[in-house]
């Protein structure tokens, strides 16, 4: 074998390497194919349904079209994407022992973490872009044009994806079992945040500004004109029984701020957890 000096590439080069091969791994994984198929399937069903029914819900206006097509479905696809690409991204390094191949190299753990995160983000972005492409193609077919609100909504969805992946990676760093970390992610995004939002809104009547799913509302809300405000619905069931049900909607600034805080906080926490986690 060649007797050449051995060493380590620069941290940036290692980050590129880590991202490149993790992305390749995502791209070839069955779950990527599953996500592409799901996106295609839902969009084909929508395409056929709208073409057949010519429903006013979709075709009334450009904002109605994009709000129903894109705003009505993209959150669930973001949830599926982060579960598929982030749920076991770090825990898998422990359970599947792939970490034993990577960590004993002259590479910082943070480089591995960020590289995997970027790879998951790029793979998830492809799914997001595929959904957006179907939406746009149909929107253009029905002469809806491309409203700036749709572009804003896409950017908000992209930021939400970045943040949700960061949250998922953090939880993935907490566990060494892939099934537990995936389950926790699903429970968290599908139930826990939503239940907390509801309890805060209905029982405590407090705006759930601490919840990432509350912030995510801006993705669909930006496609409404006017942008939804807070409001309180009063219900009277008798002379003495009067109930009020508030509905809170994060403003765009609030939504972006909540996402940014979640992104930074969970990224830092996830990195610290991975730095300290032991392979035993």
């Amino acid at each position, binding site marked *: *074998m*060649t*007797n*050449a000096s*051995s*060493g*380590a*590439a*620069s*941290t940036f*080069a*290692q980050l590129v*390497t*880590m991202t490149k*091969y*993790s992305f*390749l*791994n995502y791209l*070839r*994984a069955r779950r990527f194919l599953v996500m592409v198929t799901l996106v295609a399937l839902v969009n084909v069903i929508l395409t056929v349904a709208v073409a057949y029914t010519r429903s006013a819900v979709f075709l009334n206006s450009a904002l109605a079209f994009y709000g129903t097509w894109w705003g009505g479905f993209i959150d669930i696809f973001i949830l599926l994407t982060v579960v598929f690409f982030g749920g076991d991204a770090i825990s898998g390094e422990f359970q*599947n*022992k*792939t*970490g*034993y*191949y990577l*960590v*004993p*190299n*002259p*590479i*910082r*753990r943070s480089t591995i973490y960020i590289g995997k995160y970027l790879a998951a983000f790029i793979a998830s972005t492809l799914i997001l872009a595929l959904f957006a492409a179907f939406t746009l193609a149909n929107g253009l077919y029905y002469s809806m044009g491309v409203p700036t609100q749709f572009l804003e909504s896409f950017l908000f969805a992209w930021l939400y994806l970045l943040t949700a992946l960061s949250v998922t990676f953090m939880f993935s760093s907490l566990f060494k079992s892939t099934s537990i970390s995936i389950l926790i992610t699903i429970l968290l995004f599908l139930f826990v945040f939503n239940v907390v939002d509801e309890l805060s809104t209905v029982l405590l009547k407090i705006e759930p500004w601490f919840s990432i799913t509350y912030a995510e509302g801006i993705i669909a809300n930006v496609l409404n004109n006017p942008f939804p405000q807070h409001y309180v619905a009063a219900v009277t069931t008798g002379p003495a029984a009067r109930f009020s049900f508030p509905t809170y909607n994060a403003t765009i600034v609030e939504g972006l701020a909540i996402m940014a805080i979640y992104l930074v906080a969970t990224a830092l926490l996830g990195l610290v957890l991975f730095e*300290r986690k*032991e*392979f*035993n």
Partner: protein
Amino acid sequence: MTNPSINIVNLSKVYGSFTAVSNLNLKIEGPKCVGFLGPNGAGKTTTLKMLTDLIMPSSGQAFINGENVHTHKRAALASVGTLIETPEIYPSLTPREALNMVAEMRGVPRAERKKRIDEAVAEVRMAEWMDKRVGKFSKGMKQRICVAAALLSDPTILLLDEPTTGLDPRGMSEVRDIVKSLKKRNRLIFMSSHILSEVADVCDEVAMIDHGKLLVYDSLANVTAKFSGGGNVVEVGMLKPLDPAFITSNVSRIPGVVSAEITDDKSLRIKYTGSLDVQANILSELIKQNIPVLSYRPAASALEDVYLNLIKETL
């Protein structure tokens, strides 16, 4: 090339009430192969993991080539090839991609990468599998790729944790040959193993550990001389068969020799009492008697004696 070194200073690892490694001190310097022996749960793998950033020490420090593994990991592991437990590779990658990944991380120049990878893969006899997905490989095949990854950057130090685990007999023999060839290329190899004959075959020195504490660290010859209970044994390989009568009459008369027995046509097993001087004297006497000695080494069974004497019970 600088003198490769591993320096373990008061290294401890505690899990709750269980101490896996206790104030371990071990300094290994220079090109050689050191066998790291001990029963299950003795702390071998824990020590190797602390040397490779897989786990953090509870106290103490580990230095490789003078660099602290935990504060300067990139510098410390820059010239280290590792094989700890049985690593897994991303299943959708091919060996070529998995090895390219390591080569890129380690800064192997693009122009050299292909050659290095081809050489490493040829060494572990996996050339024909280069473009198949790793996910379909057997444990032994993955282990070979991981051995290739450890060799890829031509490291000055190799940390191997039971490197022949999961390999078939041919694979085990090939890994032993690789270790021997690395020794010839002035590398420092620190290798844990349960296979005493393997250690006796390839290692120059042994470190024995039990309950997280170092029991002994010395040359194989010194360890067997000091701690072997029922006399020492050397195995002599000869270039050609010799007359058994000649052997028994002449070799048995060498001072210190208790018995000399022909194990096969070209192998001789000499049991003796005494120190390393006696062992050295036997060799020079054999040569004086024109016995065509091809190899001369302490027998694995002597190491087994030492092991059983020093390590009284296992977990």
